[in-house]
């Protein structure tokens, strides 16, 4: 039985990854799951310098999911390299660093610092809805996305994954722009912008007013977008959005995802990632599937 997948020349022992920002750099969940069992750990967004993030309240529960407006708090690439990357290098799993920035230069600064480390790939976050500058603005305009992708790709010694925002009219156009700009892969979806109002206190629940929605509630939108992109580009796709179980993961793969990531559901079930790995194997046995690659995009 083969569960290995390959994205841009990087081989993953299985398709299961962690969604950026929901798993720290693996440390916090290493007491629940064996990181060695995962295809990859995708880190929280890393910037060129420390970012304080947004004021609290930063998280809110919504029906079948949550909103977050963390605002990309992170210690910056130097601390990241020294501590988090060092920690991760103890494990036999691929490391994908999620990169954030407020300008192309900031993204490139992170990429350049990490170029000679053991990081396997970069995931470029051009889709965070919770910071004012950069980020999502880069991910909502195909021309800008093309440009940003091209510049980062030029600076990068590792394959780059462009992480797309679902808050767009045509996800296909964004995927094509990323591909044209030289992206080695795309990942989707980042969170969908949402809002929650406390009707008793008559206030926004989040200090940031809006937040990014994630969790099972967004899964159908994510699956649809993965499907659309799979039919629009030929680079591999990492699918995410509400994955809680192996069944969810397989739904994404059938729609066209090569890799899959578990996000918010780590909070609900800290064992989720390992369970998804196991569940995919069970599905393969049940359906007599020798090679997981055969189900990628099998429904069309």
């Amino acid at each position, binding site marked *: 039985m083969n569960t290995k997948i390959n994205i841009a020349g990087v081989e993953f022992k299985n398709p299961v990854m962690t969604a950026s920002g929901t798993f720290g750099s693996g440390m916090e969940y290493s007491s*629940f799951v064996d990181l060695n069992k995962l295809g990859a750990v995708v880190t929280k967004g890393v910037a060129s310098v420390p970012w304080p993030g947004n004021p609290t309240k930063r998280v809110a529960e919504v029906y079948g999911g949550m909103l977050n407006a963390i605002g990309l708090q992170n210690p910056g690439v130097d601390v990241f390299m020294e501590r988090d990357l060092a920690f991760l290098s103890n494990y036999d799993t691929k490391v994908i660093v999620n990169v954030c920035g407020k300008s192309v230069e900031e993204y490139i600064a992170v990429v350049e610092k990490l170029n000679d480390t053991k990081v396997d790939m970069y995931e470029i976050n051009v889709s965070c809805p919770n910071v004012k500058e950069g980020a999502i603005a880069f991910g909502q305009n195909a021309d800008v996305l093309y440009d940003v992708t091209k510049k980062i790709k030029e600076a990068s010694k590792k394959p780059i994954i462009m992480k797309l925002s679902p808050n767009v009219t045509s996800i296909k156009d964004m995927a094509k722009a990323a591909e044209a700009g030289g992206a080695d892969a795309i990942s989707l979806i980042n969170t969908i912008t949402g809002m929650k109002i406390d009707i008793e206190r008559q206030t926004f629940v989040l200090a940031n007013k809006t937040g990014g929605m994630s969790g099972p509630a967004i899964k159908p939108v994510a699956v649809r977008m993965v499907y659309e992109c799979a039919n629009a580009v030929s680079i591999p796709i990492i699918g995410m959005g509400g994955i809680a179980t192996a069944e969810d993961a397989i739904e994404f793969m059938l729609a066209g995802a090569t890799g899959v990531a578990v996000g918010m559901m780590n909070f609900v079930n800290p064992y989720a990632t390992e369970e998804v790995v196991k569940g995919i194997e069970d599905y393969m046995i049940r359906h007599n599937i020798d090679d997981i690659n055969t189900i990628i995009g099998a429904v069309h």
Partner: protein
Amino acid sequence: MQARLQARGPAHVELKEAWRKADKYMFMKKVKAEVISSKMIEKDIYDLCLNYEGAKDAKPGQFVGVFPESDAHLLMRPISICSFDDKTLRLVYRVVGFGTDEFSKLKEGDSAIILGNLGNGFDVDLCKGKTVVLMGGGIGIPPMLGLAKTLKEKGITDDVHAFLGYRDKNTFLDKEFEEVCNVHLASDNGEIGFHGNVVDALKSSGVKADIIMACGPMPMLKGIKYYAEGENIDAYISLEERMACGVGACLGCVVKTTKEDHHSHVNNARICTDGPVFDARDVDI
């Protein structure tokens, strides 16, 4: 930095091992816990006892996440450990919304889904031989009970004063505090004990605190921080914030700190893992 990174091999295995072995991560699981009893002890205040394997590792001031059954409400509800023994965990909480309302319907024999043990808890060793003032306000009172009991049971000090602030005469848990320490009551409307907040109650009591440990609403904690800094008393306060993961991964639950936090180096510590108990001087509330 690059140099340090290159030398990462053995040094960082150490880090990893340290992480896994760190005292506070001795018990960290999501488990089903059987309900031993559940009762209303005051209007909207419930007392839940669970058969919980993590109880033996619990520290006063730690908390657990309790998950609603509802598929619509996915996040855990952080509830402080009120008290504990080798096998059982006691949670005392106020019904304020969906989750706590759902928990209030639990019956003996049902089960609750618990993620724990979370957070650092109060460091009882700091209290050795001192005059300890415990301050609890409203639903911040329950965790102070476990602390009072621990101080007594472990013989850390026998000079413990609990200042308990209620809204009105409808008190709860105060009888149990009386079994383990000196109790001073206060109420917002003056129906019982001191008429006013616990800080003023402490001031007017004549008790001279060497160290304060507290949990309660933000205005009370601010008052304590201000008072303790003025009097140069050590104060440890337990904070609350909206949480998603409870384990330090999501960065949802931060509090502004006066010093650089060790995680993100941006003066934003995570309440769930770096707290919920902080040295009052360290937080900018």
